[in-house]
Every structure is written in structure tokens, then in C-alpha cells.
């Protein structure tokens, strides 16, 4: 019937070639992740112990643990989330559910895109000028977290908008036809159906917030603090800055220490991510479409 033509054979070859090529690219992408994690675990693993996680640094930060930095990062991320999630979700709800397609909406969209493109060190300087000096928060968790919140706001807004837009229009129309108001519809139908997408944004934000160093360096993170932060007006140590400090600023640090700090930071982000992913999977199971 159909002979395998020369052209056909060549096409098949090219097909295989590109398939292999793209597969190689994917493997190349995975490689750095594996190498980074392996290095961290091999070099930093041995130093991780109960004492490392739950005591303060001693001997000029060359020994002891990282508790203040660990707690500090949790503070910074939590307060940043408390500010940016409500703000970001509210903004996204307005943009997706209420705003018309006019010049005002377009200007806001442009502003959000630009905010996402601002380098983190510029956010840091803004944070110093606005929160530390002008609002007189001083160098504190509050100032640092607000800076982080502004920096990660676009992530939350964009992720939330996308998940709101993914809720079928028919859901809203059905709700309106039952006589529900716009707000009732948003609260009872749109938001509950969009939660999993919103969580994606939050996950991305947590990872970025925990890892950032520049925005917190001038606004709230300290080189060394002899106590744990007790309120948002305290300064704090943070894992990311601590990693910078022990790898570049302190002489005589054992080689495993910076790797240990990095391993804890990465593990913390991975745990938070897996928790949210598990929650997302659970919610998706309850999805109605």
C-alpha cells in the first residue's frame, strides 16, 4: 500500500532528533537542582542537629546554632504574608470582578507589571526611605516585612487574577440569576473555587520572601542579635542574611556551617511548598468542574 518514502524516513529521523534534543534540555534543567541539593546535603548535612536548630550562635558566630535566624525568617515571612495576601487578593478581586476595561484599569495593570520588574535592591532603598525613616518604624520586622510584601505583591495579584478568571462565567451567572449580589457571588462562589490558584501565588511568595536578602538588609535584619524577636518593632536575624554573613563576613567559620544554613533555608521553603501543594491537591479534589 503505502511505501515508506525517503521523505517520510527523513521526517522520522528529524522527529527523533528533536525529541532527544528537547529531552536533553529538560535533563539539563534538572541537573543544577540535583547538584545544588546534593552539595548542600553532603557538605551541610553533618552539621544539622537538634542543637544547631534550637540554640543561638556562639564564639563570634563560628559555633552554636541558628535559632534566632530561623525564628526571624518565620517572622518576616508571616508578617509579609499577613500584609500582601489580603491586599493582593482584594486588588485582584477588584481587577477581575469589578473593573471595566478602561484607561484606569490599564494604568493599574501597567503599574503591577512594573512593580514586578523593580530590582529587589531598589525595593530595599524604598523601604529604608518610606518605612524606616519617613514612617519612623526604625529598622524592624515591620519595616522589613512591609518592604517584602510590596515586592511580592505582584506575584499574589497575578496568580489570584488568573485563578479568578479560571472560574467559569456560568457559575457567576447562575448565582446572579438566583438574585445574589456581586459581593455574595464573589464570597460564596468565586473565591472558594479560586482558592487553589490563590495558594499557588502564596507558595511562590513564601519561597521568594524567605530567600531575599537585599530588601531586609537595610530595613530590619541584623548581623547579630542576642535575643529572639518579640514584636514587629524588634529587629531580627534572618537565615538569608545569616548565610551571607557566615560565608563572607566572619573569619574562622567551619566550612560546614554556611552549607548547613543554606540547607535549612532550602528545606524550610520546600516543606512550606509541599504543605501548600498538599492542601491544593485536597482542595482540587473538591472542585465542582
Amino acid at each position, binding site marked *: 500500500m503505502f511505501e515508506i518514502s525517503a521523505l517520510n524516513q527523513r521526517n522520522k529521523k528529524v522527529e527523533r532528533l528533536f525529541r532527544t534534543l528537547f529531552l536533553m534540555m529538560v535533563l539539563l534543567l534538572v541537573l543544577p537542582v540535583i547538584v545544588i541539593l546534593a552539595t548542600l546535603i553532603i557538605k551541610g548535612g553533618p552539621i544539622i542537629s537538634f542543637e544547631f536548630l534550637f540554640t543561638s550562635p556562639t564564639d563570634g558566630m563560628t559555633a552554636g546554632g541558628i535559632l534566632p535566624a530561623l525564628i526571624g525568617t518565620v517572622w518576616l515571612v508571616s508578617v509579609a504574608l499577613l500584609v500582601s495576601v489580603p491586599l493582593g487578593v482584594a486588588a485582584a478581586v477588584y481587577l477581575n470582578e469589578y473593573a471595566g476595561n478602561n484607561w484606569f484599569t490599564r494604568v493599574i495593570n501597567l503599574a503591577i507589571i512594573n512593580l514586578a520588574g523593580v530590582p529587589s535592591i531598589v525595593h530595599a532603598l524604598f523601604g529604608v526611605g518610606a518605612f524606616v525613616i519617613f514612617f519612623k518604624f526604625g529598622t524592624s520586622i515591620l519595616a522589613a516585612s512591609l518592604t517584602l510584601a510590596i515586592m511580592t505583591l505582584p506575584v499574589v495579584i497575578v496568580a489570584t487574577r488568573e485563578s479568578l478568571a479560571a472560574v467559569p462565567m456560568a457559575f457567576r451567572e447562575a448565582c446572579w440569576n438566583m438574585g445574589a449580589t456581586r459581593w455574595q457571588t464573589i464570597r460564596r462562589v468565586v473565591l472558594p473555587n479560586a482558592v487553589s490558584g490563590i495558594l499557588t501565588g502564596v507558595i511562590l511568595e513564601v519561597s521568594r520572601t524567605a530567600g531575599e536578602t537585599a530588601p531586609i538588609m537595610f530595613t530590619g535584619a541584623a*548581623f547579630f542579635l542576642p535575643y529572639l524577636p518579640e514584636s514587629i518593632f524588634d529587629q531580627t536575624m534572618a537565615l538569608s542574611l545569616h548565610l551571607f554573613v557566615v560565608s563572607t563576613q566572619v573569619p574562622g567559620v567551619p566550612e560546614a556551617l554556611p552549607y548547613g544554613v543554606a540547607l535549612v533555608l532550602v528545606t524550610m521553603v520546600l516543606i512550606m511548598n509541599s504543605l501548600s501543594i498538599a492542601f491544593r491537591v485536597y482542595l482540587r479534589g473538591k472542585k465542582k468542574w
Partner: protein
Amino acid sequence: MYLRKSMSLMGALLAVIATGAEGRTLIQNKGSDTLVNVAQAWAEAYQSVNPDAAVAVSGGGSGTGIAAMINGTVDIANASRKMKDKEIKMADERGHHPVEHIVGFDALAVFIHQDNPADTLTIEQLAQIYGRDGKARKWSDIGITVPGCKDEIVVVSRQNNSGTYAYFREAVLGKEKYRNGTLDMHGSKDVVDLVEKTPCAIGYSGLAYATEHVKMVCVSKDGQACVSPSVETAGNGAYPIARPLMMYTNGEPQGEIKKYMDWIMSDAGQCIILKKGYAPVRPVQCN
């Protein structure tokens, strides 16, 4: 449902945050990267001396500390250079009045690779290496052959807002600028690490950053006998590249800040700076 739950959760969290405990006096201490490790050691030791006060330490460089003093965001600014008249004027205009306290001395050691045969360098030779108008671009220009190096000198310096950068220029180059093409590192430790691995390199950093893997040169000035950097030669002024380390307070120190400054100047505080490799302000007996 989701919304109501998360809102009440958020409210609870906010309430927890708002009732954070107060009561301990917090001393903000920021500035010089040279002094930051000493400042950290002081803060760490002071915990057991006076539990009523806590010292928060940040680095960033002398410029960072001085800027914070001008803006009034720190209690004590660490600096490895004197505040300029212009800076003191700016602080005064904002109602802050910096008072200088010399808390110790620092000797800037000149580091070379272990395989480098040089033992002594004069200030003039250093100026030839580091200066914009200097003639020494190769080790052979100053009569040295370094094994494992293709003769070109790798000149290691610091980023330009560092107090170490400013002081080395003042002590070695005078008004002259640094040459182009130096490797500007962002920390004293980075300088030493780089010199340790690079046979062609020369660099400078605080004496405290010396390791057994690099060589410190004996420095001579104006044709006099060379002096090796050490805690003694820094404190008695014999070593030509030594400088005072300063802490600035806003006005004469009061209350907890005064207690802290007094403790730093006491034998206990001065022994800590000695242990960190800097020279104390006066001879102290430490165990």
C-alpha cells in the same frame, strides 16, 4: 466560609503581634565591617554582663553606620575612619550630635601568597603597585620573581564605601587615586581568601583576618627599618598602616548606652578586642 475562617485567623495573629513584650533596653549598633566582628563579640559577651540591655549589631561599612548616625537610626555607629566635618555638620543640622570614642586600633596588614618570596615592602613600593600613577604593574618591576605567577600583579582592593579602602588610600597613596583594574572585594575575609589562592596577588585587610595560609609583609616607611604588623606595633604607633577604630554616640552617652560604652573601655571589653586581633587602647592583662 473560607473567608470568614481566614479573617478571624488573621485577626488573632494580629492581636498576638500587637501585644509583643517590651521592657528590655535595645541598643542599636551599626557600621564598619572591620569592627563588626568585634561589635558582635561585645554584644554576645554583654548578654551575661547586663541582661537588661540587648545590643543589635549590623554591618554594612563605616559609611552605612555614619549615614545611620546622621539619620538618627542608630544609638552607636561603628567607624574605621573619622567622620568628615561635612558629615558632622549634616548630623548637627538634623539634631544629632556625634561624639567620637576610640575603642581600639587596627593594623592593615598587606597580604601576599605564601610562595611569594618578598618579605619587606616599602610604602613607596605599595604606592607604585596601588597608585594610578604607579609604575609597578609586574612583580619584576619591584625586583621580585614569584613562582607560579606570570609576573602581572593581581591587585586586590576593597569596594569604595569601605573604611578599609579609604584608610589604605590615605596611608599609602595620600591624595592619589587607586589604579584602574583592581579587584574590589566586598569583605575583608574575601581579600584574604583570594590572595590565599592566587600566587600573583597582593591585598590588604585588617590584621585580624590573617590566616596561616597567607604571608604578611613587613612594611617600612621613609627609609626606616621595616615593622611587622602586630597588636603591639599597632597600639604603639610603630606600624605605619595602623588606625584608630571609633564608635560614635549621639551626644555624650547616657543610661544604658553609657554603661555599655564604659564596659567596652573596661579591661573585660578591651580583652575582647585584643582576642579578635586588634590592639586595645591601653595595655590590658587578659587571661
